[in-house]
């Protein structure tokens, strides 16, 4: 029963990891920017929701909308004012990585200073567990997490497959020169990728704030998980990122069966490490970039 409980918890957490990782993977696939500040987007979104909903007692749909708005603005601003200028002078991986990492450090400390470094959580009826079978507790949030994740993923696939912007996004991930030849503006499409990728963190951020709670360092953790899931799943594959997110969530929880909770993160990174050494292209990866 404990095992089943851990798997259910794993699926709940994993669905949210998957969703965040898909956002990261979408940005990376389309723009080739390793967006280390993706975790910062997550933290901003979660804290805005917390502040509006739990402190100012705003109605929840408005809180979520506000959080979406801020996080999209953050993603687009980063693309315009940080990555854009860097790419126009020196587009090497290293400068972009450092710029992005710098933003993540600043955001984490700003949040720590404004909201405190302690642990906070949004009280909600959704996170109250119900005993489904003897010894098996499931909260409604688990169901919501899975349904939202699947809905967002299917929605995203439809968007990428059916709409013009979606097709342009996929084209950009193949070749930005060709996109320009067809008279589209790669900058505008990359802005879209940032908006969409950042938007995808909101459901995960909101649900995480209700279930496992937040602290100022959460951005760093989420960033690590997204990067890990993207690499394990295979860079450029959204499906891979989603599956790997789920896998990491389950692995992290299953680790509790045998090890102390402090080790759960370590187990996740052992998986990442093994993948990088043994199969750098991930499960669904095309070719390993060298």
């Amino acid at each position, binding site marked *: 029963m404990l095992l089943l409980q851990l798997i259910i918890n794993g699926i709940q957490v994993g669905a949210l990891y998957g969703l965040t990782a898909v956002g990261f993977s979408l940005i990376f696939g389309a723009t080739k920017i*390793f967006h280390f500040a993706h975790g910062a987007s997550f933290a901003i979104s979660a804290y805005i929701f917390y502040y509006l909903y739990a402190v100012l007692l705003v109605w929840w749909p408005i809180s979520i909308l506000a959080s979406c708005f801020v996080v999209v603005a953050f993603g687009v601003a980063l693309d315009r004012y*940080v990555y854009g*200028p*860097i790419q126009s*002078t*020196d587009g*090497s*991986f*290293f*400068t*972009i*990585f*450092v*710029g992005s*990492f*710098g*933003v*993540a*450090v*600043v955001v*984490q*400390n*700003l949040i*720590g*200073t404004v909201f405190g470094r302690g642990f906070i959580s949004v009280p909600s009826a959704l996170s109250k567990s119900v005993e489904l079978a003897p010894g098996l507790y499931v909260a409604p949030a688990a169901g919501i997490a899975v349904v939202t994740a699947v809905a967002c993923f299917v929605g995203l696939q439809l968007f990428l497959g059916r709409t013009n912007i979606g097709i342009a996004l996929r084209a950009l991930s193949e070749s930005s020169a060709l996109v320009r030849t067809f008279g589209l503006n790669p900058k505008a499409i990359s802005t879209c990728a940032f908006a969409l990728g950042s938007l995808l963190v909101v459901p995960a951020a909101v649900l995480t704030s209700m279930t496992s709670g937040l602290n100022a360092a959460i951005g*760093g953790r989420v960033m*690590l998980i997204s*990067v*890990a899931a993207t*690499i394990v799943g295979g860079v450029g594959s959204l499906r891979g990122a989603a599956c790997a997110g789920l896998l990491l969530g389950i692995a992290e929880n299953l680790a509790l069966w045998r090890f*102390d909770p*402090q*080790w759960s*993160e*370590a187990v996740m*990174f*052992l998986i*990442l*490490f093994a993948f*990088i*050494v043994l199969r*750098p292209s991930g499960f669904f990866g095309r070719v*390993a*970039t*060298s």
Partner: protein
Amino acid sequence: MIAYLVNLATLVCINAILAVTLNFIMGYAGIFSLAHAVFFGVGAYVAAFIALQWTDSLLLQLPAAMLVAGLISVALALPALRVRGDYFVAASLGFQVLAATVFSEWKSVTGGIGGLVGIPPASIGGHAFTDPVEFLALAGVTLVLVVVLTATIVRSSFGRSLKAIRDSESAALAFGKNVALIKTLSVFYSTAICAVAGVLYADYLSFINVESFTIDASTLFMAMVIVGGIGTVWGPVVGAVLLTLLPAALTYLPFLPRTEIGSVQQMIYGLAMVLLMIFKPDGLMGIKRGEA
């Protein structure tokens, strides 16, 4: 006041050793490691363990720490041989997280979260470095040796091979360079010397715990290299001086609450990293790199 300055200067020396060794793999080998604090920690823990269990002799602690760190560096060299760039950064981050967990959980050796206390001061040939000024001299001499040694290696044929690999791995391979061996050796050198800084740190403070060896520390070391100027001889030293003195300088600002100094410091260097990347990617001491 003198004691305060001596203390700062000693920490500057230790951080400069770390920045110089990190710059060696980042700037010349193109291996962007976010796990440098791991080897700093390994050096510190090995020194502390030996000092508490057996002897305070620096001549024994140093080789032991360098050897252990060098052996563990295989864990860093392995992904470095397989992948480059972002992938490697991710792998090193994973390694850093894993190592921090080991540091805080392996209680019989590392003392867990509480750390190890009462580490006796180091000694060479029976002479204990109890006076802070003497210890500063020791750290300063070590720093000079490390800078000279690193600069010599960079200028040697090994250093040129390293830069060739950074700029184009396949070209270096085509010229018959043993890429795997050169990368492994460079990581070994960098981490072994990094452990020396760890030994000095443990012996100097006589107290260590996992806090000094986390991802925040790795980020700080990387910031030192980047702010100073990656791939230059003096850049990392300048970066280490600036970023070590920054928190001390911030304490003179009366309107800042003490508890916020750490995070203000991190915000400043985070912002510095972003702005430098936008306006001057080569760092303060950077000279325009050629066709890199």
